[in-house]
């Protein structure tokens, strides 16, 4: 039995985390994400979990990573300014292969920008924001239901691939209220355990090491320095660094097909919208209003690793149109993979594109 509720996106995100077994939340209040922290503050103590309001976002993500090493599922939620503060420790989570979930309810930037208005301005920051080379997993919900579903999925991907996973939502899905179906139980993908005799940072065949939580007797050394398969610092050996960084990237990029999650509409279309998050809702409206126009639509639920193979589904595509709540961040990525023109349709300020605006773009470019 599942239950149907009318709830806010941020609440659905918190409910998704709880359903996925999240038992640690460390955060610092920031609009428009705060409702997630408030919900977790109420819910976690009742379930034997820990909620802590840290002194800043550097501390929030640090506490989350520390908690994750004790074996619990742990998360934080923030928005632009806080997300920027987390960057160094996000790189630490990547380097130490710490599974955790980071929710970013995006708002208008740069800087303090528009605290109460939606944006998708951090889509490249979540991929490239910390220093050094790496890959990440990022999901983009377009509805309150997906705030629930994709938060659950983020925990599973984080544990499966031993990475920080991002839920890159925004003020629109965060604050919108919609009908949500909450299942009694959700699928839980457990962390693979370290087996006796295995080394704690040996990726094996798929590049993903077994996890030995603190207290399990393996005496694991966890460091952000370049390390060997034992976890010991090995910072001067070029080959050791090359091997580690290539494995960290490879374990994600080689699993692109498994991680991918997207929807395709009208694969024969010549004009194709590519969207993620709330702008896809306007495209759905357009498709509904103009059913006979043969408009194509690729909607990404997983944005990183980018599923370039999904673009080739549109064999007749002449042009890709990309409405985004930024100046064209993902349009750059799409253009990297196709020969056809990719037209960014930026929208700044916090509102979604109207159907009329997209119709205008459609007429201008097809």
């Amino acid at each position, binding site marked *: 039995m599942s239950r149907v509720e009318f709830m806010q996106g941020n609440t659905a995100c918190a409910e998704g985390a709880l359903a996925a077994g999240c*038992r*640690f939340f*460390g955060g610092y209040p920031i609009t428009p994400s705060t409702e997630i922290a408030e919900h977790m503050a109420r819910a976690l103590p009742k379930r034997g979990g*820990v909620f*802590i309001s*840290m*002194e*800043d976002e*550097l*501390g*929030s993500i*640090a*506490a*989350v*990573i*520390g*908690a*994750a*090493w*004790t*074996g*619990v599922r*742990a998360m934080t939620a923030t928005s632009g300014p806080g997300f920027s503060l987390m960057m*160094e*420790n996000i790189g*630490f989570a990547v380097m130490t292969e710490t599974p955790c979930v980071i929710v970013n309810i995006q708002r208008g930037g740069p800087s303090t920008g528009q605290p109460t208005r939606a944006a998708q301005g951090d889509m490249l920051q979540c991929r490239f924001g910390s220093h050094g080379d790496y890959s990440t997993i990022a999901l983009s919900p377009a509805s309150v239901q997906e705030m629930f579903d994709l938060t659950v999925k983020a925990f599973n991907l984080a544990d499966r691939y031993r990475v920080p996973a991002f839920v890159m939502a925004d003020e629109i899905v965060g604050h919108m209220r919609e009908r949500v179906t909450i299942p009694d139980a959700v699928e839980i993908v457990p962390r693979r355990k370290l087996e006796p005799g295995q080394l704690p940072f040996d990726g094996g065949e798929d590049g993903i090491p077994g996890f030995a939580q*603190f*207290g*399990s*007797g*393996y*005496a*694991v*050394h*966890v*460091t*952000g*320095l370049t390390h060997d398969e*034992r976890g*010991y*610092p090995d910072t001067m050996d070029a080959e050791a660094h090359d091997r580690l960084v290539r494995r960290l990237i490879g374990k994600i990029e080689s699993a692109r097909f498994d991680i991918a999650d997207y929807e395709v509409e009208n694969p024969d279309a010549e004009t194709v919208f590519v969207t993620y998050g709330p702008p896809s809702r306007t495209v759905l409206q357009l498709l509904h209003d103009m059913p006979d126009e043969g408009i194509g639509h690729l909607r990404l639920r997983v944005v990183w690793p980018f599923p370039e193979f999904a673009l080739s589904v549109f064999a007749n595509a002449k042009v890709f149109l990309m409405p985004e709540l930024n100046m064209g961040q993902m349009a750059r990525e799409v253009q990297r993979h196709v020969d056809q023109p990719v037209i960014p349709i930026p929208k700044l300020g916090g509102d979604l594109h109207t159907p009329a605006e997209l119709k205008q773009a459609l007429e201008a470019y097809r």
Partner: protein
Amino acid sequence: MTAEEWYRADRLPHIYCAGCGNGTVINCTLAAVEELGWRREETVFISGIGCSSRAPGYILTDSLHTTHGRALAFATGVKLANPGLNVVVFTGDGDLAAIGGNHFIHACRRNVDMTVVCMNNMIYGMTGGQGSPTTPPGAFSTTTPYGSGEPAFDLAELAIAAGANYVARWTSYHVKELVKAIAAGMRTPGLSFVEVMTQCPTNYGRHNRLRRVSDMIEYLRTHALLVQKKERLVQEGKTVPDEMFTVGELVRRNRPAMGVRR
């Protein structure tokens, strides 16, 4: 002094310079751990970045070597998520009081049940001896070539003001007292802060006419003023020289604490 099974023998040789005080502090900490009878699989050593923060890498327990300044925030997550673990943090004066100052005062305020051992060498050691928040006024370093013009932090006083349940300060010369202080801190529920004035002949001594290890240790010994003696001097209306620092047990109390094993 301490049983070999607490060290990762396969990590040797270590990175510390000849004459560094950090080995003494690690040894004293492990002696305290042994005195308490802690088991390896229930103990986690956590640190930030710096020479001092390399210590957990040499100890055969779960260990978390994190980012510069953030050790206490990581440790807060570990301890609150699993209060069954014994948590010890190694940190330096830069790691703790410069970049990590905010986490320091908040960890003390929360009084999270852990032991924090700060190796205060009065400079940023790992980056080559720049001035830190504990560089004494007038002292030379690579970024205070004319003598430091800034007042310095008293880390122990800071921890007391912020709420830590146990605070002590010793030097790397006072090894017996140091072991006792760390063990007392480990026994005290809540945050225990033990500051150890530690010699760095390579990067501090060299610029301050204390190039020989013995000179540096002598400097620490002669600048340490037992807290009881200081109180007596104050009572007698005598002046306490500015360049002296108090040593001894400075606070032991029972404020409410977080993350205490039930």
